[in-house]
């Protein structure tokens, strides 16, 4: 199964994304508030300065006199080193100051304070203008006092604030990212614990999972336990079913076979005897196939959940061979085992290994002529090699790779009863132990040599 995305990554990126948005918002808000505050301060000082100048205006004899108060301009210098410009006009005529400083463009209502940002002599200025009516009603003059200041100080303040806001915002983002990473990991820890608990158990272990799970995972664990108990019940049922089916089929077959043997003994005519002989062969064939299919099912089931016991492969080989000695004896076939004097330790599944060896030996006995010899040897090289060599008809060269496939029999099996599962079983068992099955001609001449190669 290919995983689709990762919850941890998604959680982390979402949390980090939120942190990034919050950090940016923080940065912009802090900067704009701070800049507005700094700008407001400059504007207020400029307004105070302009008002102070306006307050010192006097109307004398139809003219306007101005005694420029020094403090009005000096208070501007207290804020920053920025250059200050001013201009006082009466009815559009410049009384004092820079006569090219632009006049305010806004409305011309008296008493009004106009705040503007303008460009003068290549610099950006902040300008505050105060309008004052002066003189008697008949000879009223509109006086405009404009005080302006460059904004370099303000820009410096702005840069400082921006730098601080960037540092604080970035720091906040980094901290939040680290916390997101931690949060994503912590939030997923119960899930990882549960996964670990499920993975650690062997495939044989079908007991319910009892790991402590958070509320969100309880339905999943419940469903998993439900599946496990159903699987266990199903496996048990299958085993029982196979045993029961075998019993139901084999018991009547045994009756028929025994009766057929009795009848065979009593009959005299060769053609009748031959008919019974065919019957018995058919019974043997079906019973053998059933047996091998059961063995194959058992092997398939067990290889998924095999034992890893410490075995003595040498003792196991001798024991298994001795089980088939009476069968071999019937055809005067002798079986010799050469396992060396010492125990051969191996970790594996005793039942599977026995099934493999029994099937190989059974094949060897079946295809060997009377008065022949089967030699079983166990050698320790880089791998453990358990070989069974017979003096039977051997294999046709072409068959070799095909024989270990299910239900495939050699091309020269002739009339010998077989289902074609024996070598498949042996090959599956070898595979389950990390080894392989080698099918070859007997190196000593006629016959076959089948070897289980098992890694140490």
């Amino acid at each position, binding site marked *: 199964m290919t995983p689709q995305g990762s919850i941890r990554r998604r959680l982390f990126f979402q949390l980090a994304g939120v942190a990034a948005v919050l950090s940016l918002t923080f940065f912009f808000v802090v900067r704009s508030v701070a800049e507005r505050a700094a700008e407001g301060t400059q504007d207020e000082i400029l307004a105070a300065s302009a008002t102070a100048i306006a307050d010192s205006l006097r109307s004398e004899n139809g003219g306007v006199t101005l005694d420029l108060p020094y403090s009005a301009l000096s208070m501007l210098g207290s804020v920053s080193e920025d250059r200050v410009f001013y201009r006082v006009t009466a009815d559009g005529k410049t009384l004092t100051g820079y006569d090219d400083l632009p006049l305010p463009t806004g409305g011309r209502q008296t008493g009004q304070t106009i705040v503007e940002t303008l460009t003068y002599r290549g610099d950006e200025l902040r300008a505050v203008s105060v309008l004052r009516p002066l003189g008697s009603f008949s000879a009223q003059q509109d006086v405009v006092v404009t005080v302006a200041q460059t904004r370099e100080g303000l820009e410096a303040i702005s840069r400082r604030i921006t730098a601080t806001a960037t540092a604080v915002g970035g720091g906040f983002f980094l901290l939040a990212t680290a916390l997101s990473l931690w949060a994503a990991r912590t939030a997923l820890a119960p899930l990882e614990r549960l996964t670990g608990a499920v993975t650690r158990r062997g495939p044989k272990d079908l007991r319910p999972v009892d790991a402590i799970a958070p509320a969100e995972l309880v339905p999943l664990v419940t469903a998993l336990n439900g599946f496990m108990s159903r699987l266990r019940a199903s496996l048990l049922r299958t085993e029982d079913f196979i*045993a029961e089916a*075998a*019993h*139901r*089929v*084999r*018991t*009547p*077959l*045994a*009756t*028929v*076979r*025994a*009766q057929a*043997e*009795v009848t*065979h*003994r009593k009959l005299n005519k*060769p053609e009748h*005897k031959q008919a019974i*002989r065919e019957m*018995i*062969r058919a*019974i*043997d064939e079906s*019973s053998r196939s*059933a*047996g091998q299919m*059961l*063995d194959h099912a*058992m092997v398939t089931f067990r290889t998924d959940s095999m034992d890893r016991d410490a075995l003595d492969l040498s003792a196991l080989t001798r024991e298994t061979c001795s*089980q088939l*000695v*009476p*069968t071999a*004896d*019937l*055809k*005067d076939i002798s079986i010799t085992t050469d396992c060396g004097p010492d125990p051969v330790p191996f970790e594996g599944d*005793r*039942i599977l290994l*026995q*099934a493999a060896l*029994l099937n190989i030996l059974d094949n060897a006995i*079946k295809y060997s002529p*009377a*008065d022949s010899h089967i030699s079983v040897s166990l050698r320790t090289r880089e791998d453990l090699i358990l070989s069974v060599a017979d003096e039977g008809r051997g294999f046709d060269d072409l068959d070799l790779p095909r024989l270990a496939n299910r239900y495939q029999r050699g091309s020269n099996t002739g*009339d*010998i*009863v077989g289902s074609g599962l024996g070598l498949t079983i042996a090959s599956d068992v070898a595979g389950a132990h990390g080894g392989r099955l080698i099918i070859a001609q007997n190196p000593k001449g006629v016959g076959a040599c089948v070897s289980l190669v098992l890694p140490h």
Partner: protein
Amino acid sequence: MRFLLIEDNQKLSSAVAERLHLDGHAVDCADTLNAASACIAVADYDLILLDIMLPDGDGRDFLEQHRQAKNRTPIIVTTARSAVSDRVGLLDLGADDYITKPFDFSELEARCRAVLRRQGGAADNNKSFCGTVLDSAAAELRFADKQVSLRNRELRLMEVFFAAPGQIFSKSHLLDRLFSFAEDVSENAIEVYVGRLRKRLDGADITIETVRGLGYRMVAA
């Protein structure tokens, strides 16, 4: 040999009994574990054939009780299961051997023979005729001061003759006794084995005689 056959299927049990009779064995049948215990209490058996699934219990329990009671009568389990795992379990419980149904009677006999040989042989295993002794457990002939060991088929053929000295056995009968149903052999094969027996009997006071057109018989030389 005397068998106790513990099997709940009546038809199978009577067929097996009849088949074993043909080879000259005596068979008592028990269809439950209780009946089997009753039989064992009153008679001695050379061998017990035990089915695993029985109406009044599991054959495995019987096996364990039998071994705990120190009864030395060998038990061969006959079961319809064939999984190797069952086999291993049964041998561990104390069964002497294991054979799956349906069984080949010559294989059953071979297994019985092997089990008895491991135990040191049944008491009446030796048969003699005209000073020649056939020891089935040791698979050898003894005559004069000679001991001649026999291969499996030679032994089985010799047993047929020793069971009824002087009786004529047809080639086809001997063929049935000697070869399994899976083997296709001609009647000439019997000549080979009879020839081998004659060589083994060299120096003994008995011989195997060809009765033209009828078969062979064992007679005093």
